[in-house]
């Protein structure tokens, strides 16, 4: 793929002038040219992408836990099948995103090690517990809804592999979101106990979902640079307002209330104003002191560590097969003929 940047490189600057490369990169980004893995890019751009994409991948796989928590207890076979399919999709999204991140010169194993060591983050939302079946619906509606609001603009992100991964992921996420909404609707219109269960779940997930958009604009460390690089298209607060505007009428249709006494229509702005977010709670969760931070990471580490012997077996087997292939004087392994 020819971009402005590779053209600049191909013009015979064997020892390219870093200023010229940077200028060509900036021009390419400004022209909405997709940056591809073999293109030159500033180290800080690469680092930002690795950080953001790894965090995104980690969120997919840690995010399996709160929902998988209800697979064995789903109240109907249809709901169980939907939930299993969703958790399977999340593992798949994790795989796409790790692959996309690997195009930046890091390895999946290394990223997982950093996650397990607590040196890379995942979304703060997954540190909240799923206490009832209705939480599965609230996660679909609110958490996936917030994720989609965040991720749709990423389909136009300047880094090609990330943008393409997001196109595939957003399609599946919107499907999950509708299913979550439909789950809540069934509960809300069900027995009084089911309705109460749905309302309780929305009460617990509403504020954490608003926190998914990150700190307010005046406190967001990476925003300005990410917007200049066209990794990010809209500010945190802008996306958060957009999300609130979408959710309010949806809550009305559901017959559920949102737990915010200050929520009201702002005629002048043509949108909803919401009450203050508890940023102290947000910071505590990020610091590792949320309700489930410890459990989520422990569970992930335990799965990885108790699976070590299985991964070692697969590696040893592959090595033996290669050896046997060489000994037989050709590349075919035993299985191919079996």
């Amino acid at each position: 793929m020819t971009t402005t940047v590779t053209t600049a490189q191909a013009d015979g600057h064997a020892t390219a002038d870093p200023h010229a490369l940077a200028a060509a990169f900036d021009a390419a980004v400004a022209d909405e040219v997709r940056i591809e893995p073999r293109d030159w890019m500033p180290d800080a751009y690469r680092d930002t992408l690795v950080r953001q994409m790894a965090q995104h991948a980690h969120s997919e796989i840690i995010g399996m836990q709160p929902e998988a928590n209800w697979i064995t207890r789903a109240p109907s076979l249809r709901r169980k099948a939907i939930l299993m399919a969703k958790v399977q999709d999340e593992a798949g999204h994790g795989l796409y995103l790790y692959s996309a991140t690997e195009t930046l010169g890091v390895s999946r194993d290394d990223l997982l090690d950093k996650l397990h060591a607590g040196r890379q983050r995942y979304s703060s939302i997954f540190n909240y517990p799923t206490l009832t079946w209705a939480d599965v619906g609230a996660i679909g509606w609110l958490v996936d809804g917030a994720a989609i609001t965040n991720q749709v603009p990423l389909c136009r992100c300047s880094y090609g592999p990330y943008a393409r991964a997001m196109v595939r992921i957003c399609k599946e996420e919107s499907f999950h979101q509708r299913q979550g909404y439909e789950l809540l609707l069934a509960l809300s219109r069900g027995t009084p106990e089911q309705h109460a269960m749905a309302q309780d779940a929305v009460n617990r997930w509403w504020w954490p979902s608003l926190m998914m958009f990150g700190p307010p604009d005046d406190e967001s460390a990476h925003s300005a640079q990410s917007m200049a690089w066209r990794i990010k298209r809209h500010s945190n607060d802008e996306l958060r307002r957009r999300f609130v505007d979408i959710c309010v009428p949806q809550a009305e249709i559901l017959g559920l209330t949102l737990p915010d006494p200050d929520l009201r229509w702002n005629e002048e702005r043509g949108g909803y104003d919401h009450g203050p977010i508890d940023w102290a709670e947000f910071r505590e969760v990020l610091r590792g002191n949320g309700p489930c931070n410890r459990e989520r990471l422990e569970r992930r580490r335990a799965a990885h560590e108790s699976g070590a012997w299985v991964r070692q077996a697969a590696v040893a087997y592959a090595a033996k097969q290669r050896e046997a292939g060489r000994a037989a004087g050709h590349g075919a392994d035993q299985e191919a003929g079996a």
Partner: protein
Amino acid sequence: MALGDDALVLAQRLGEWAGNAPVLEEDVALTNIALDLLGQARTLLSLTGDEDELAFRREAHEFRNVQLVEQPNGDFADTIARQLYFSVYQELLYGALAEGGSELAPLAGKAVKEVAYHRDHAEQWTLRLGDGTEESHRRMQRALGTLWRFTGELFEPLEGLAVELPALHAPWRERIAGVLGRATLEIPEGADRTAWSAGAGRQGVHTEPFGRMLAEMQYLHRAHPGASW
């Protein structure tokens, strides 16, 4: 109904793996297999009644699944051994059903493709664990031995089924022996068909872990009688 219960119970067990697998690819694979089995269970149970009534309102002694599928997941080798024994059986069973003219033939024709994939997955892992490291070999051999006594029940005659289950035993054993041979593993010794427990699950007699599994599976549905979800 017995075949539906087999698929339902094994799907429930595999669902416990979600998020706990040794590699992400296995999270995908095990959940995928669980989903296939759950799909089979839903079709089969719907032939006899309401799928949710049957899954969530029956007591343990009313379930007709074989004891093999209710065995706890254990470590990855235990899960793979259970999967190998069962998927080879299911492939033979559905293959035979698909060829017959019974009401299950269309379902079996569809399911046999899924089951061939499950069997391949279990075989590939049996080879890797059996012929991998010393530890994986030891674990796989132990898992095969632990579950062996539950395999005889698979071939007990089942009333109303268009397939002679006892006739599948010889080809099943031959295939298992073939895979284990390639995996440098030994076929376990001891009773399978004549084990005292053979046939118990089909008569509603189950092992201890089954009651707990059902308690977890059914609690929410039972807590809200008459509710729809």
